[in-house]
């Protein structure tokens, strides 16, 4: 990405210079003071967008932008949960495997036992929340480090996802369900609206509800939070349950789009999800980050993937670019923090 950036920066500057030579200095000065107020990830997002709109004429079309939104819905929903877990200083490695397991359980009950799809979906959501509960209890009452606890549940969930159908995929969901994937409301995909709703709800919870706000206190220092009369274990368990539940919600989005359930679906999303949260400015040490940053991180990942696809960048190279983006984001964040 560093390559792509340096290529595009120059033409942008040149264009601005020729258009507004006199006011450019003032603009730069104004830009400087505004930039300091704007969160770092947003600058990255704007830079990436400018770069791609320069390189591909299709990038800024309405259709493509809607596409980006649609493609990131599933990761976005998972990232909300992952961001909450990282905010309290934990980590949830099991989210990808939970997507696979809850989708498989859902499809398996629907196909092999004739359970009405609404109920099998609810069971799928329950499985997600249950895995979250296990993660939460292990990492609080069980005193297992969250990395280890969720590594174990990740392993168990991906195994169970294969076990229920003996590794076979399930196809053929009800039409009304798969129809949701192509449903548009005000021209926007249903799944994207769902994601945005989840982001807004959680952002409200984090900003205005005492329990949500206590996540920052717990992430900053659990002992300070506990001595302040916060039931830290209860809150932590709740956060893991939310993360598991949202992963199960993401599995429904995935299932509707693919009209099938595959036992390894979502497993590879784990790294993207953590990348989104980290690029969004959260620290793995806990106590910092939020929904706005995570949303911007999500858009950066989405735009990068989409733009690289438009430019025919080899799919094998794309993770390399994502890796570079993570490093740049974290280093910029460190710089602005200092």
């Amino acid at each position: 990405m560093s390559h792509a950036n340096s290529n595009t920066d120059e033409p942008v500057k040149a264009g601005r210079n020729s258009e507004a030579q006199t006011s450019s200095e003032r603009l730069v000065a104004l830009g400087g003071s505004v930039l300091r107020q704007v969160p770092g990830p947003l600058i990255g997002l704007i830079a990436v967008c400018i770069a791609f709109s320069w390189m591909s004429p299709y990038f800024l079309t309405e259709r493509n932008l809607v596409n980006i939104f649609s493609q990131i819905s599933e990761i976005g929903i998972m990232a909300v949960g992952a961001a909450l877990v990282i905010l309290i200083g934990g980590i949830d490695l099991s989210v990808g495997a939970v997507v696979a397991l809850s989708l498989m359980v859902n499809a398996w009950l629907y196909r092999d036992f004739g359970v009405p799809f609404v109920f099998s979906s609810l069971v799928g959501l329950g499985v997600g929340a249950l895995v979250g509960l296990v993660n939460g209890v292990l990492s609080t009452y069980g005193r297992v480090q969250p990395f280890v606890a969720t590594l174990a549940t990740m392993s168990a969930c991906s195994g169970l996802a294969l076990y229920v159908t003996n590794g076979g995929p399930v196809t053929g969901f009800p039409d009304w369900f798969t129809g949701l994937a192509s449903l548009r409301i005000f021209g926007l995909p249903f799944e994207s609206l769902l994601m945005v709703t989840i982001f807004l709800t959680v952002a409200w919870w984090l900003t205005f509800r005492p329990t949500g706000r206590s996540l920052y206190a717990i992430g900053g220092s659990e002992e300070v939070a506990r001595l302040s009369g916060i039931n830290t274990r209860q809150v932590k368990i709740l956060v893991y349950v939310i993360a598991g539940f949202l992963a199960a919600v993401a599995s429904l989005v995935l299932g509707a789009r693919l009209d099938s359930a595959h036992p390894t679906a979502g497993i590879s999303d784990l790294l993207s999800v953590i990348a989104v949260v980290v690029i969004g400015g959260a620290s793995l040490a806990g106590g910092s980050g939020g929904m706005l940053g995570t949303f911007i991180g999500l858009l950066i990942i989405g735009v990068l993937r989409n733009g690289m696809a438009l430019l025919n960048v080899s799919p094998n190279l794309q993770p390399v670019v994502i890796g570079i983006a993570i490093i740049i984001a974290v280093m910029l964040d460190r710089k602005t923090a200092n």
Partner: protein
Amino acid sequence: METNAPSPKGLECRGLVKNYGPISVLKSVDLFLAPGTCVGLIGENGAGKSTFNSLVAGVVAPTDGRMWLDGQPYEPHSPSDAIQRGVALIHQEIRLLPGLSVAENLFLGALPMKAGRIDRRYMEEKARAVLATLGVHVDPRRPVRGLTMAVQQGIEIAKAILRNPRYVIFDEPTAAVGETEAEQIMGQVQKLKSEGVGVIYVSHRLDEVRELADEVVCLRDGHRVSHWTERPVPKDEMINAMVGREFTFKHHPPSPSRDKVVLEVRDAGHSGAFEGVSFDLYEGEILGMAGLIGAGRTDVVRTIAGADRLDRGTISVDGRGIRFRSPKGAMKAGIFMVPEDRKGQGLNLDRSASENITLPWEKKLAKFGQITGRRVAEIGEAQKYRFDIRGRMSLPVGAMSGGNQQKVLLAKWLVEEPRVLIVDEPTRGVDVGAKMAIYKILRELASAGMGIIVVSSELEEVLGLSHRILVMSEGRQSGILSREEATPERVMSLAVSG
């Protein structure tokens, strides 16, 4: 600049200035330290003592001014450079690695090697010898984790001594230890002095400075305001120089009526920490809790406040027996604790002062389940006014001075009035001005009817503040003294009674 040649022996600083951007924290400070002597450095928090230490120890470079070491120009550009030149700084905070052995900690960065391997035997023998000269008795092979603060401080000193320094700066070495441990540490300083080492001794405990220092320098607002060269330095002069105003130590709290028991503790115990603690706390009473470090004082109050488990015994508030298992439960019963460790237990230094203050109260402050930033700021401003906190409440509390942080910590627990307030080391690392302000707050709360427990390692503080004093010794309650009975000698004899 130079009016006369620097002394051929000793550490000499002339006109040291340090600016951070437009802010000047040290303004032309002179200091001379001869070998084998001790200069006491005193001043309120924020007076520039730590900055001065950092300059001398090579942690930061001065903006202006010069230093000489035994007549040679001395411009350390890093702490290791300073150590090589023979100047060591012993930090206020202990920086040992808990998982490594005592010996490994001592030799960290310069592990003795033999045939490509670490020479453990040499290392352990040398460690044992150095520790013995300091009077620290600890097995060099055991890990540092679990050692008392005084022993850890002794290891820090030993670590510095191993590098054969000729000048040592002690930055509040006794801030976190009790009286006996403090005396041990002071003995170690005396020993260094007698071996010809020059010592700069920084402390808020003026009695220690008076005992150790041959000269005393006082800083205020970055200026050197006083310099005494004759012992003994009068204590009230020192205090006046520090705070910059006339000041008297007076503790005359009115006695409470003693007709209503707020808190009743009977045979309380927490396995491995303390046993058999029983006392009553009356409405309007300040009960001091004295004892050596490790006597279990903090464990007792943590248990009363629900932070640790009550294994045996009973606790009642206003006659109602309570069983709680968390700080949350204790708060519901009306018992609040201001913890001793600001950084680790009391405040989240990265969050704003207002957010820290409202943290325990958000559920109560919420309207329709919502709490807004404006509400948080309102409460913060109200507490700022009430507790005379200096500094912006919207900035991270870590940016405030120690005294103001301590006021924020008190303010955090006093958004609503508890029945029982427990304060653990309420003035640790706090300057004299803030100290007086905190005493005043505590007295006012008591006279309004609150029951207060004060845990303190400073005997003077416990004696001056309390109506009665409970003394702990090795996990047991060794006695309760009324104010009339409580003399420093009696408290100490109970504290060491075992």
